[in-house]
């Protein structure tokens, strides 16, 4: 028996993806499949940044590509209290003197302030692993983007369903 409370968001999305793929194969979701084949967003992808998010990303990162990988953003799929939403950001990128993660940025698409926090790190930390608690106004995609000393940008995304507004 599967304990539903222990299912991670990722696992649920993976199962949904498999179901969607099966349905698409049977023709029921042919249009959705065409969209995915066409490069449209899948269930695990964030929505296209709104104007404010695009501006915030552009100000900080210019037009450098932001690729998915090397970062995990762990958040609850459902946050009952938007005033206190746990966040864990981890990365497998090296933290050596010559090459390291110099910045970790947290963006919440639908918060009054889109860029919620920046964490500036050095190799002395040895590893990227940050745990904190944030406020969320409403259901939104959250973006964790790390910047390396090489100028590379790596990201992970989480969609969090918010029941109680945590921003007023």
């Amino acid at each position, binding site marked *: 028996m599967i304990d539903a409370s222990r299912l991670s968001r990722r696992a649920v999305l993976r199962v949904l993806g498999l179901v969607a793929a099966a349905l698409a194969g049977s023709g029921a979701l042919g249009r959705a499949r065409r969209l995915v084949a066409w490069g449209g967003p899948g269930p695990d992808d964030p929505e296209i940044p709104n104007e404010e998010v695009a501006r915030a990303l552009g100000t900080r990162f210019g037009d450098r590509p932001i690729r998915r990988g090397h970062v995990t953003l762990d958040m609850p799929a459902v946050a009952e209290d938007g005033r206190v939403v746990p966040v864990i950001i981890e990365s497998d990128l090296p933290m050596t003197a010559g090459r390291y993660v110099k910045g970790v940025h947290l963006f919440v698409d639908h918060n009054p302030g889109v860029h919620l*926090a920046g964490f500036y790190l050095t190799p002395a*930390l040895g590893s990227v692993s940050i745990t904190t608690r944030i406020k969320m106004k409403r259901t939104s995609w959250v973006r964790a983007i790390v910047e390396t000393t090489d100028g590379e940008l790596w990201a992970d995304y989480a969609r969090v369903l918010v029941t109680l507004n945590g921003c007023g």
Partner: protein
Amino acid sequence: MRATIGEARIRVPDRIAKGDLITVNSIISHPMDTGFFRTKEGEPIPAYFINEVVVTYGDREVARFEWTSGISRDPAISFKLKADREAPLTMTWKDNQGGVFSQSVQIAFTA
């Protein structure tokens, strides 16, 4: 009931060996008011939040955090640290109204 604003705690493991990658847990008491709320009497509550945290290990700055009022009340943050020398680990929190709060813990190795 609520702790004094700026009261902070830093927790590191009891036993640390040289070279360990340790987890540093910290918490500070602060309202982190966004400026969007009003009191029951309808008076606006001004924005009052920690916007910068500096972490030093011995004489070196090892991390710096830029925060907004989007961080929850009584901000808690944990991070990893490579314990490669015996030295104090100090965190300094600064808020947007000029408040500066500091807390230290000694990183010492168990034989």
